[in-house]
C-alpha cells in the first residue's frame, strides 16, 4: 500500500533523511520510532507529499506522490504533530471545510462529518469553537479530519501528544479499531504505545532506518532468549564474586553480573544474577542449571528475561544506525 524507495532529504547542510526505504502492506499497522531529529517527521512529510524528497520515490496504492499527487493525497488521512486546526472555527465547520477540500459531495459530506464526530467522540462539543477545546479534544478533531474522507491509509504523527492517561487509552483503542480496516503508519515517542498498538516497529536514528521488525522479533520474544535472571545460593562467606566465577566460562555466555537489587535473604548466601548470552547461543537455561549443579550451587530461580522495546530502542539508537536492519 505504501512503498518508499531510497528517499533522502537535506535542509541546508543537515541531512535529515538518508536513503530510507520501506514497504507497508495493506492492513499493516507500523510504528515509527526514533529520538528527536531522527528524521521521522521529515519521512512522514515526504510520504504525505508535504515535502518533496531530494531523491527517491514514494507511492501510495500505486500512485506516485509527485507525479500523481492529487490521487495519492485522496488516499491518505494525515494527522500532523500537534494537530494544527483553525481555532476560530467550530469542530463541525472545520470538518465540513475539510470535506469540501476533498471534494465530498454535500450529502456525503454531512453524513461523513457526523460519523467521524461520533467515532472520535467529539459530538457533544462539535458546535464549540476549536480554540475553546482542550488539547485532547483538539487532537480528536484532528483525527476526525484525517478520517473524514474514509482513507485506506492513515498517517498519524504523535497522535497521543498532550493527552492524559485516560485519553491515551481511549486514543489507543480508537487507533486499534481504525487499524482493523486500514494501513497505518504511526509516529510516536511513547514506546509502550507503539508496542501495544503496532504489529511492526521501525526505528530511525540519524536519518536512517536502524531496525525494522515485529515487536516480538525486535525484543527477542519470538526466538531464544538473550538474557536470564537467576537466583543462586553459595557459601554465605564466599560472596557474589565466587558465584559469578563458578558460572563463568559456560559456552555461549557473554556476561554474568550481580543485579543492583539483591534478595532480602542475601545474607544467607543468595545472589541475584543477570546472565547475558552471546547472539545465536540458543537457550542457555540447561547449561546454566547444569553448571550451577556441578559447582555445588543451589538454584531457586532461572528464567529468561525479555528485552523491552525501550531497551531495544536505546541499544539500536546508540549503535548509530548502520542501515536497514
Amino acid at each position: 500500500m505504501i512503498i518508499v524507495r531510497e528517499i533522502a532529504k537535506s535542509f541546508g547542510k543537515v541531512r535529515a533523511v538518508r536513503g530510507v526505504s520501506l514497504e507497508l502492506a495493506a492492513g499493516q499497522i507500523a510504528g515509527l520510532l526514533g529520538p528527536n531529529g531522527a528524521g521521522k517527521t521529515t519521512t512522514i512529510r515526504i510520504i504525505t507529499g508535504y515535502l518533496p524528497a531530494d531523491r527517491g520515490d514514494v507511492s501510495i496504492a500505486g500512485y506516485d506522490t509527485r507525479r500523481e499527487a492529487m490521487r495519492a493525497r485522496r488516499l491518505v488521512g494525515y494527522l500532523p504533530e500537534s494537530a494544527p486546526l483553525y481555532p476560530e472555527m467550530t469542530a463541525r465547520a472545520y470538518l465540513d471545510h475539510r470535506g469540501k477540500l476533498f471534494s465530498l459531495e454535500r450529502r456525503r459530506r454531512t453524513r461523513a462529518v457526523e460519523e467521524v464526530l461520533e467515532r472520535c467522540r467529539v459530538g457533544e462539543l462539535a458546535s464549540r469553537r476549536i480554540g475553546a477545546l482542550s488539547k485532547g479534544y483538539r487532537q480528536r478533531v484532528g483525527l476526525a479530519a484525517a478520517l473524514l474522507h474514509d482513507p485506506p491509509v492513515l498517517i498519524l504523527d504523535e497522535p497521543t501528544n498532550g493527552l492524559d492517561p485516560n485519553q491515551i487509552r481511549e486514543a489507543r483503542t480508537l487507533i486499534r479499531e481504525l487499524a482493523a480496516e486500514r494501513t497505518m503508519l504511526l509516529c510516536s515517542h511513547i514506546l509502550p504505545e507503539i508496542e501495544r498498538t503496532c504489529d511492526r516497529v521501525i526505528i530511525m536514528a540519524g536519518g536512517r532506518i536502524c531496525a525494522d521488525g515485529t515487536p516480538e522479533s525486535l525484543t527477542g520474544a519470538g526466538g531464544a532468549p538473550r538474557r536470564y535472571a537467576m537466583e543462586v545460593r553459595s557459601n554465605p562467606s564466599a560472596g557474589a564474586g565466587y558465584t559469578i566465577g563458578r558460572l563463568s566460562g559456560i559456552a555461549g555466555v557473554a556476561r554474568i553480573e550481580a543485579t543492583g537489587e539483591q534478595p532480602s535473604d542475601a545474607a544467607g548466601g543468595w545472589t541475584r544474577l543477570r546472565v547475558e548470552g552471546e547472539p545465536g547461543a540458543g537457550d542457555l537455561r540447561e547449561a546454566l542449571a547444569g553448571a550451577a549443579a556441578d559447582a555445588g550451587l543451589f538454584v531457586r530461580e532461572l528464567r529468561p528475561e525479555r528485552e523491552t522495546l525501550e531497551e531495544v530502542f536505546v541499544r539500536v539508537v546508540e549503535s548509530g544506525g548502520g542501515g536497514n536492519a
Partner: protein
Amino acid sequence: MRGAWAIATREMGSLLRLPVGWVVIALFAFLSAVLFVNGTLTPGQPATMRYFFASASWLMLGVAPAVSMRLLSEELRSGTIEPLRTAPISDAAVVWGKYLGGVLFLGLMLVPTLVLPIVLWGVSDPKPDPGPVIAGYLSLMLVGMLYLAVGLLASALTSSQTLAFLGALMFLVLMMVLTGTVSQAEATPQWMARALAALSVQARARDMAKGVIDTGAVAFFLAGSAWFVLLATAALQSRRWR
C-alpha cells in the same frame, strides 16, 4: 476550483469571526464617513464623490495589507498549512482561494460606505450622476485588489503577520513615492519618469474617480493583481524546497 472556493469562503468567514475583521470594517467605515463629511458634504460644492474616492484609495494603502497580512502568514505560523497542503488541492488553488477570500472581504468592507452616495442623493440638488459613483467604487475595488495581492505576496514570504503587514505597506509606499514624487522630479531622466508614471496606481485611481473607466486601467489593475498572486504562489511553492 471547488477547493479554491472552499478556501475563499472559509477565509472570509474566519475574518468575520475574528475581531481584526470587524475592526478593519469599522475603521474603514468611520474614516470613509469622515472623508465624506469633510470633503464631499460641503454646502455649495457640486454633488460629486470624486474627493471621497480619491482619498479612500489612500485608505486602502493601510487597509488592504491589514486584511492580507494573515492570509498565509497565519497558516505558516500555526502549522495549518500542513493539513492544507496535504489535501488534494494545488498550491495555486490555495493561493487563489486565499486571495479570493480577501477580495470578498474587501467587497463586504465597502458595503457600509454605500450609505454615503445615498445620503448625497438625498441632500443634493441637482442629484449626483450615478456613473462616476459606480466608476469610483470600481476603482476602489481594483486598487484594493492590487494592494491585497501585494500583501498576499508579503504574507507568503513570512510567518509573521506584523512583518507581512509592514513589508506590504513599505513596498506600496515606496512604489507610490517612485511613481509619484520621483517620476515628477526634474532630475529624473525622461524615460524613467515615463516608465514610473506608467506604473502609477494613484493616477489611474484619480482618473477613475472622475468617472472615466479606461479599459487599459482596468487591465493594469487586474494584470498587476494576477502577477502578484502568481508570485505569491511561487513563494509558497519554494517553501517546499527550503
